[in-house]
């Protein structure tokens, strides 16, 4: 008889288990003297006969009639729909070696009659461990005992919010690894998650079969509403060559990018013509959906940017020292790249057009500052040494004549006439005899003030006929390239017989 009583209690347990959080459980111990067997109240529980799992209300009323005992308000088990737990007493009683009710329901191993409670999860895990050491262990197979959350319609918002997060989910590397875990055991994820759980971060959730299979759930939608997406920067994104390598990685596996990035992510840098074929395979941001990782450029102190180049790197810097954030600052080029970009642009090791339009080149190479400050604010006052040392080639952006010479004339540094009367080159009274060395070392400096005819006053047939050519001057070669050039200074072709 006692066996039957325990069986009844056992059968009752799963049904009562979660309900007990909301309603006071039946005080079995206080009724121990009344019921010698579990089946007195829980008849047919072993057969999973739901109609007879609980005692009829009239049975309680035999005592709780208001005269013998106070009346109770219990009106019988409520029909609440499917719970998260799936349990069949019928199956367990058929397979169990020990089918005594107390084998699962005895409270803390108590031998006292009807000192029972719901079975703890460890009791389930004692058979259904699957290698797990605890109920929420990573190796647990949730689907063994649980139905999917979407199907567990009996769960209220509050009960969903109270579901404990498995310890594995708090691991630092979990976010990066959870995709593989989900693919390996999708039913485990579905125990606690619905499609909306994933949509909070995954911008491609709609096109992911694994996520779509979770099903939609309004309770989860309410639960995640307003919670920001969080992203852990993958380790390969922190590689110092990621700027160079990410394009190949994207072409190879754009689906991986689409997990966190919309087109907007890429277009925060890729505003040029390149990479369009790849980028357009990413989803567009949609209202109500996750916007994905938000990238923006780091502010740089361009007004006195360093000169030297450094290895190209893309630094992804978490904002405000947070590891997980949707907003990331990106610096693609190293400090000083503006002045050292020539090698990368010329060789093509970086595809400028992927991110930049021609207008970017023109904003500097047309010689006028429009949107970018290439030089320091006081550059005009300091530009002479940099021009002499050709740290960067002035003429790659500025016309020596129309910009440098024009400005030097406007500011009085060079005469608007052919010569000047005062002593600009006052460093050396004998400058006229010394200027040849300076001119050969930096002829662009001369041309930034002097017109050709100024020099031709001495260096031409019409002038003093002072030969300006160096010993290695190949007159024949230059004449072949542009014969008219010789006649600027020579009255007739000096190479003609």
């Amino acid at each position: 008889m006692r066996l039957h009583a325990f069986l009844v209690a056992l059968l009752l347990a799963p049904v009562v288990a979660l309900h007990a959080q909301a309603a006071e459980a039946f005080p079995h111990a206080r009724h121990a003297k009344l019921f010698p067997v579990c089946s007195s109240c829980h008849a047919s529980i072993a057969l999973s006969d739901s109609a007879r799992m609980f005692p009829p209300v009239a049975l309680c009323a035999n005592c709780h009639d208001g005269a013998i005992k106070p009346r109770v308000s219990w009106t019988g088990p409520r029909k609440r729909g499917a719970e998260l737990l799936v349990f069949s007493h019928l199956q367990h009683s058929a397979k169990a070696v020990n089918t005594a009710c107390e084998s699962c329901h005895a409270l803390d191993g108590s031998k006292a009659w009807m000192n029972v409670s719901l079975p703890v999860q460890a009791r389930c895990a004692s058979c259904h461990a699957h290698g797990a050491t605890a109920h929420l262990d990573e190796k647990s197979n949730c689907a063994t005992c649980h139905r999917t959350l979407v199907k567990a319609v009996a769960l209220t918002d509050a009960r969903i919010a109270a579901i404990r997060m498995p310890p594995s989910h708090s691991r630092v590397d979990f976010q990066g690894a959870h995709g593989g875990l989900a693919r390996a055991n999708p039913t485990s994820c579905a125990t606690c998650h619905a499609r909306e759980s994933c949509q909070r971060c995954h911008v491609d959730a709609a096109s992911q079969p694994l996520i779509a299979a979770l099903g939609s759930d309004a309770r989860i939608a309410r639960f995640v509403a307003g919670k920001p997406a969080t992203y852990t920067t993958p380790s390969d994104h922190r590689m110092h060559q990621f700027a160079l390598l990410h394009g190949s990685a994207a072409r190879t596996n754009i689906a991986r990018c689409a997990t966190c990035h919309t087109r907007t992510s890429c277009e925060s840098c890729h505003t040029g013509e390149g990479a369009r074929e790849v980028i357009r395979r990413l989803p567009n941001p949609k209202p109500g959906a996750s916007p994905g990782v938000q990238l923006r450029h780091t502010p740089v102190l361009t007004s006195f940017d360093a000169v030297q180049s450094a290895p190209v790197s893309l630094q992804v810097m978490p904002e405000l020292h947070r590891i997980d954030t949707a907003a990331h600052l990106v610096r693609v080029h190293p400090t000083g790249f503006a002045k050292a970009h020539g090698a990368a642009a010329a060789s093509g090791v970086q595809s400028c057009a992927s991110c930049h339009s021609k207008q970017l080149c023109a904003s500097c190479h047309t010689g006028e500052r429009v949107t970018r400050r290439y030089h320091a604010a006081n550059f005009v006052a300091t530009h002479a040494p940099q021009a002499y040392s050709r740290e960067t080639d002035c003429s790659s952006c500025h016309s020596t004549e129309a910009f440098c010479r024009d400005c030097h004339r406007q500011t009085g540094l060079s005469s608007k006439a052919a010569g000047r009367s005062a002593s600009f080159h006052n460093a050396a009274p004998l400058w006229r005899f010394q200027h040849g060395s300076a001119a050969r070392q930096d002829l662009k400096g001369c041309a930034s003030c002097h017109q050709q005819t100024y020099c031709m006053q001495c260096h031409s047939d019409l002038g003093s006929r002072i030969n300006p050519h160096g010993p290695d001057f190949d007159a024949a070669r230059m004449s072949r390239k542009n014969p008219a050039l010789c006649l600027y200074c020579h009255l007739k072709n000096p190479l003609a017989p």
Partner: protein
Amino acid sequence: MKRLLLVLALPASLCAQGYRITGVSTLQFIELRQLVLDTVLASSVPGFAAWRNTVDGVPASCVVGAVFCTVEGSGSRINAAPVLQDLTLAAWGWSEGLSVHANVRVRSQIGATDPLLFPRANDHLDAIDAYAELDRATWRARLGRQWSTGALGAYAFDGVNGLWRHDHLSAEGWSGRALLGGLNDPYTSAQLAAVDNLPPQQDGYLFGGTVRYRPDPLSAAAFTYQRILTADRTGLYAERAAFNASTRRYAATVDAGFNFDVAAAEFDEARVRVGTNWDRPVVFSVEARHSRPYFELWTIWGAFSPVGFDESRVSADWAPRGAPWALTARGAYRTYAETNTGISLRTNGWRAGGDASWQNSGRLSALASYDVDIGSGASSTDAHVGGRWLASPDLSLGGTASVTQSIYEFRVGTGRIYGAAADGSYRLSADIRIAADVGLYQHTLTNGAPGPDWTQRRAAMRIEWTMGRDPGTP
């Protein structure tokens, strides 16, 4: 030609599926004192030579027997206020890969009667580029005014450009009427004639091509050849070739390349740079470089046998992982080739400098730098310190302070300039951004240097706006 390009580009955009117009309006205010000629009584200038100094140390040019000597000094304060308006148009949607692009610049100057005319302020309309593009998977073609940017620099031209790409290889060719570098006008432009009394007499026609090979994402090499013919095809204005290669493999960054002036049979630029490319806090690089001034053949300068210099550069960057700061040190030493003039001025030069940067969470950043540049022609020492605050994604504020000392070898005299500048930008909406900067500089001339007084105020304001949408967005 400018107007023709605009006339073709603008109506075409009206029937486009989509368009995007970006405008940048820039207004600057620049104040300075010109270097002007003045006279002093010859009797007030000690000595009797034709070249002597005033009692204040200012060099004076005196003619024996003349009552006055001439000196140079700073004139009265004048200013310029150039205005630039850039308009950039992109329109697309007539056919797959077909688009039209134009970038127009309008220049003017407020206060046109002012004696200081900002360079090119009187060149009121300029089509920076204006071209139609047809882009397909393996090829791309452009027609119109456009830019060729690469190892040889940036060349603008009116013509055609074709690009073919296949796997790791691409080839590009271009041809058309050449425009002057940095001027964006034809060789026979009045803009050039206004500042050079021996301008080119004929237009130039540009032909060029590049072959680029990129075996993997970390390596690439490119060869470029380009020539500019005179319109009558009797000569060349330029003939140049370039080769560049880069790789980032084996924990090293190697960049090597040269620009060769075929007409003069000289290397204009040749450099090899090797740097560490590892995931460590300290990064080093060394570079060997040869540089020689390059001149096109419409000037006589190339016939004056300019010489180049050889330079060695080193740099080290230290950025500890996770630390908000980074340090950089750099140095360079150069020696000039023999000039064969019989007279030797300074034949070497060196640079050294370093900077320290600090960036906290991307919102606050600061940078300090110090550089010394000693060489032939001019020398300077320069120190900067500055910071930037990104108050919000829309608001950025920055400021710098600087001290500069200049030493001019070819003009005796030193000067110190103390400066302070501030700048800020604010995004009013998704499509409108405004930016401004101001600077104050105090110039102290020493040794009676006859340079212009650079004590000045500078200011600039810029408004950037966008109309239309990005391709692919609703």
